[in-house]
């Protein structure tokens, strides 16, 4: 299904030489359809099973980044999402913990298995984000890290003798944690998302949502959605990448009603109605993490893991990575990085668009 050329992006961070239309995912032209039922069973539908078997054997990579002020429950949420201790909590309340002076990037990998499918999950934590008195440009180390992963992949790709399966360390998904103030987004939230939504898939979530009543939640979500729209911030799933009508209707509903997901995370279990559930126990009641009447954790989990996991990877590869690649090739005069004219080696990729103000 071919659409018209997507609109040009005018992002000051990108060089002027970027070819205007973003490359669309490589989808072959729709072939003339033959109804196989009339002619007998061919068996091409077994391709699904073959793909499944292969995926199970090779497993797949998924890299998720969490960004937000300290104490918003990032690690707990990721642990709850993947039902394992994949993110070491920065401070288990008892330990001495110093807020780092600059944003650090900490990537921890785990292999988790479910139903015979192996996933190499990497959780990228960003301690120190938004915690200082002066948070100017604190998103730069994050942008730099993301671009570095694109660069790594690109270098592998242009190798003459390249690996059969290029290790994918690119960030497929960035969960941005919004503080549940109940008023609106904070200036730092806007700054971060403005800079990074063009580079990585951002999924905004409202953290620690058990501090808002139903009315407060829905008002806050509306205000946040409006603010994001007014500021031209496209969070995942981005409107421009909806491939067909089915995608569009499904994603529209998510974009306009559910997101940003108001979540609560927990790694403790309590007994509720004879069942053991993950939750938080307070003197006025038990908040059940997976109860849709209490919070939207289940929606987030289904969205990220059960329905859009593959799409997150595809958009990262086909859109964000391709944009980066095109820019790098352009900067290098159409040649792969590392090779200049007459065989000279060019300087490495400019990882940050603007110099860090220090």
């Amino acid at each position, binding site marked *: 299904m071919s659409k018209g050329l997507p609109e040009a992006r005018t992002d000051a961070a990108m060089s002027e030489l970027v070819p205007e239309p973003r490359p669309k995912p490589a989808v072959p032209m729709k072939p003339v359809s033959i109804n196989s039922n009339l002619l007998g069973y061919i068996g091409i539908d077994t391709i699904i099973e073959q793909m499944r078997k292969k995926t199970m054997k090779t497993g797949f990579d998924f890299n998720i980044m969490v960004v937000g002020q300290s104490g918003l429950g990032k690690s707990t949420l990721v642990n709850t999402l993947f039902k394992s201790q994949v993110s070491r909590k920065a401070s288990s309340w008892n330990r001495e913990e110093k807020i780092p002076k600059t944003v650090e990037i900490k990537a921890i990998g785990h292999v988790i298995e479910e139903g015979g499918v192996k996933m190499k999950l990497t959780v990228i934590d960003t301690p120190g984000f938004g915690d200082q008195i002066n948070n100017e440009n604190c998103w730069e180390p994050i942008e730099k890290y993301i671009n570095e992963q694109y660069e790594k992949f690109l270098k592998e790709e242009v190798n003459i003798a390249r690996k059969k399966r290029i290790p994918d360390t690119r960030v497929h998904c960035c969960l941005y944690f919004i503080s549940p*103030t109940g008023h609106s987004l904070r200036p730092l939230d806007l700054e971060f998302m403005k800079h990074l939504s063009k580079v990585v898939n951002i999924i905004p979530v409202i953290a620690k949502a058990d501090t808002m009543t139903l009315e407060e939640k829905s008002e806050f979500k509306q205000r946040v959605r409006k603010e994001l729209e007014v500021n031209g911030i496209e969070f995942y799933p981005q409107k421009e990448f909806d491939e067909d009508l089915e995608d569009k209707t499904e994603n529209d509903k998510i974009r306009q009603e559910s997101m940003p997901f108001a979540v609560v995370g927990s790694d403790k279990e309590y007994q509720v109605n004879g069942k053991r559930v993950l939750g938080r126990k307070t003197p006025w009641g038990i908040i059940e993490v997976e109860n849709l009447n209490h919070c939207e954790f289940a929606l987030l989990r289904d969205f990220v893991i059960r329905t859009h996991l593959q799409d997150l990877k595809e958009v990262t590869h086909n859109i964000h990575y391709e944009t980066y690649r095109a820019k790098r090739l352009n900067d290098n005069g159409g040649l792969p990085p590392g090779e200049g004219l007459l065989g000279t080696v060019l300087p490495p990729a400019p990882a940050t668009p603007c110099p860090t103000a220090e």
Partner: protein
Amino acid sequence: MWKMKGLKDKEYVGFAALPNQLHRKSVKKGFDFTLMVAGESGLGKSTLINSLFLTNLYEDRQVPDASARTTQTLTIERRGVEIEEGGIKVKLTLVDTPGFGDSVDCSDCWLPVVRFIEEQFEQYLRDESGLNRKNIQDSRVHCCLYFISPFGRGLRPLDVAFLRAVHEKVNVIPVIGKADALMPRETQVLKQKIRDQLKEEEINIYQFPECDSDEDEEFKRQNEEMKGSIPFAVVGSCEVVRDGGTRPVRGRRYSWGTVEVENPHHCDFLNLRRMLVQTHLQDLKEVTHDLLYEGYRARCLQSLARPGARDRASRSKLSRQSATEIPLPMLPLADTEKLIREKDEELRRMQEMLEKMQAQMQQSQAQGEQSDSL
């Protein structure tokens, strides 16, 4: 009720009735109290104030959105309300600090607050030293409720910077806002962490005075409990929840239950209200006057007496605070030339007075020595 014995009774003079007279006079005069609330936006400050004083002070408030807040600098807003209860009138002034902690770069965002507090001291100093002292308006800040986020892991760098800048100038009471975000154990851990940090950073919050030994046990126990629960973990609400069979309570209704604002097992709201309004209102004013204001006044006059020289002792105490500490009284920018000249006159007079006093002291000392040696 005191029974006034007849004047003929020789054992009884009657000045024990003095507190009554004071009480009657104060009731007639009414109370002034200035309360400042500070902290990041979205921590429930306005809701808590409304809950504490059962008013709707923030009715017409417009909360600006994020894009407006990128360029906003911190402003100081004052709201006044008169509350009457049981024949006692309180003129409550609330000082708000919208914009605090909002920007991407919050460096020095506490300076306008420090300046404001000092300006009130300076105003009072001027009034006190002036000729007509009958109707001094006390606009000094008697107490600052500082809201700490329940989502952090204790005090953030901005919290520490603000508290260090104001703790010697105003009674600070730290409060954890939106405490219904925390489970009981988390609250305890957070409170302990904050207490440890306050000690480590040498921040002097308002100290509850010890109970007099003649107070009854119940009062003492309550006092100890109150002291132990600082920083207060509060929840505010102006909505009354009617949950079917149970009695109506002020609280927040969630799908999993209702937080009751006035339930001591749910939050420390009652403790805060008791402390702030019922038992320590007067002490807060006294500490402001006797300790904080006098400290300011001494620093001011000392630097006047020795212009150019800085008092070493006060400097070491102040050095932990903001580096832009101003020892001389600051003139409000809006003053006209005339007022500036008047002020200069006054300063010169004060300086002369001080010099005279010093000379007198030296003289009497010298005389004393002379008389000793004789």
